[in-house]
């Protein structure tokens, strides 16, 4: 009797309880995403934007084919860019007007999982391997050595140990100076208040020590230090064209028109404005260069051509740890 009553009560409760929820039509289910807004205007706008995007994409292909059009690159960019822009606009309209704006809540994940962490540690420890210290050490040594060994062939990428090449120049006593086209330079063609770019005859012009900047100063302008006494050839002085700061070409010569008012002659690098004084053998007068410009001693041969009398008085190019340790070699 009590059981039948209990059954009736629970059945009734269930039936009544069900009625209280909003009734669903047959086949309908509970919504996850809320009802989107109707927005027929917005839909029309989005459709328009997408059609515009398609039109621009088509225009892009047409412009691509018609390659005789002027400002071709500009038209291509405009067409493709606008196609993307209209597409973006259409999507933004959808995002803001045609879908429900949901702001939902969720939990951040657990900070950590102590139980799982413990299990991991336990598994590792129970394996017994962690207690065999010597074994692990040997394993580590093998792994480390193997790793280092595998890296060794990287040394073949370049002369990492033999840095002798950094001192090498194509200049030796008698090497002729030639211009950009390979024609030898004559001493009597070198004029004052201008500059010349010269190279070592027979050398690769792109190698840093090959290029020179040559200028002529008057004897009374020259003030060479004792180490470079006589490096000039009748006032003609030659320096490496490569700045000792960061390796740019010294393509600037400051040649005063009127000495009483204008700045002194100087070789200037256009990268960071290191300024070198040709009159004193290439000393740095301004800028971040930490080393004077290497000077090449010159002589004039019997035929009147300019030749090197020896090598530079310092290695060419940007400084490095050994730049003051050795003289340049040939």
């Amino acid at each position, binding site marked *: 009797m009590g059981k039948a009553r209990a059954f009736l009560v629970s059945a009734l409760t269930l039936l009544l309880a069900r009625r209280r929820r909003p009734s669903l039509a047959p086949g309908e289910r509970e919504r996850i995403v809320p009802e989107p807004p109707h927005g027929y205007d917005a839909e029309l706008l989005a459709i328009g934007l997408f059609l515009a995007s398609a039109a621009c994409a088509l225009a892009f292909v047409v412009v691509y084919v018609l390659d005789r059009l002027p400002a071709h690159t500009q038209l291509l*960019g405009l067409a493709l860019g606008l196609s993307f822009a209209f597409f973006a606009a259409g999507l933004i309209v959808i995002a803001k007007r045609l879908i429900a704006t949901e702001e939902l809540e969720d939990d951040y994940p657990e900070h950590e999982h102590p139980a799982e962490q413990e299990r991991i540690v336990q598994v590792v420890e129970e394996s017994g391997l962690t207690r065999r210290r010597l074994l692990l050490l040997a394993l580590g040594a093998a792994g480390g050595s193997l790793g280092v060994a595998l890296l060794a062939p990287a040394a073949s990428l370049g002369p990492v140990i033999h840095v002798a090449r950094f001192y090498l120049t194509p200049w030796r006593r008698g090497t002729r100076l030639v211009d950009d086209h390979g024609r030898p330079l004559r001493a009597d*063609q070198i004029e004052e208040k201008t500059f010349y770019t010269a190279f070592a005859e027979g050398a690769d012009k792109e190698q840093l020590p090959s290029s020179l900047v040559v200028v002529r100063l008057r004897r009374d302008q020259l003030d060479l230090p004792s180490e470079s006494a006589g490096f000039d050839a009748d006032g003609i002085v030659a320096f490496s064209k490569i700045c000792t700061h960061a390796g740019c070409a010294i393509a600037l010569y400051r040649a005063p028109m*009127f000495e009483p008012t204008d700045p002194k002659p100087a070789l200037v690098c256009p990268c960071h404005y290191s300024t070198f004084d040709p009159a004193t053998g290439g000393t740095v007068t301004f800028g971040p260069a930490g080393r004077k410009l290497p000077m090449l001693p010159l002589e004039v041969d019997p035929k009147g051509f300019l030749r090197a009398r020896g090598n530079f008085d310092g290695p060419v190019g940007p400084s490095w740890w050994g730049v003051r340790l050795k003289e340049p070699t040939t």
Partner: protein
Amino acid sequence: MRRLVLIALLALAATPAARAGDVTRGEHLYGRYCLSCHGANGAGTNRGDRKGPPLRGVGALAPDFYLRTGYMPLQDAGDQPRRSRVLFSEQEIEALVAYVASLGQGPGVPRPHPERGSLSDGQQLFTDHCAGCHQVVTEGGYLTGGVAPPLEEATATQVAEAIRIGPYVMPRFSPRQLSPHDVDSIVRYVQWAKHPDDRGGWAIGHLGPVPEGLITWFLAAATLVAVCMVIGRRLRSG
């Protein structure tokens, strides 16, 4: 008929004199505007704060350049001459040029022929001799102690003149170093560089990465941040 011939002869007689410039007038102008720094008869001065190079033997080339660019007259002797408003009229310039040219034998005003030059040679010559100061597409540049001006306003004649003079701290390239044909090529290149090949679009000054960086931040990044603000704003204010 005879009257016509007479008129024609008179006209012919008159024009060369006008083109050659009035030397006397030039001397007068020189006395007013140039003498204090350049000295009597172009001897030059080197005293006190009035200093100026001698002008004997500079011919017509130099004064033509300095006057037509407005480099001269110069306010302070130590200043770098810069392109400025030309104070003189055409006749006054011709007069001064004639006077200075008369001070000694010197080169005449050059007549470059850029159409005879090679654009490619010009590009290479300009890069080798000029780009270090004037920048590879003539946008000008800095050097310790001076500024190499942009060449946008330079006429063909002025370029040819500057090459031979080497004003202020610019090197001086003689015909032995840069032949007249070389100068033609360089002038052709300089003229081309006033409207270079900008097939990529808006050239933003032909200076490279600095204006490109400004566009990146003030155009592209700014636009994209604005787009983010449009997208990211929720309908409910918060």
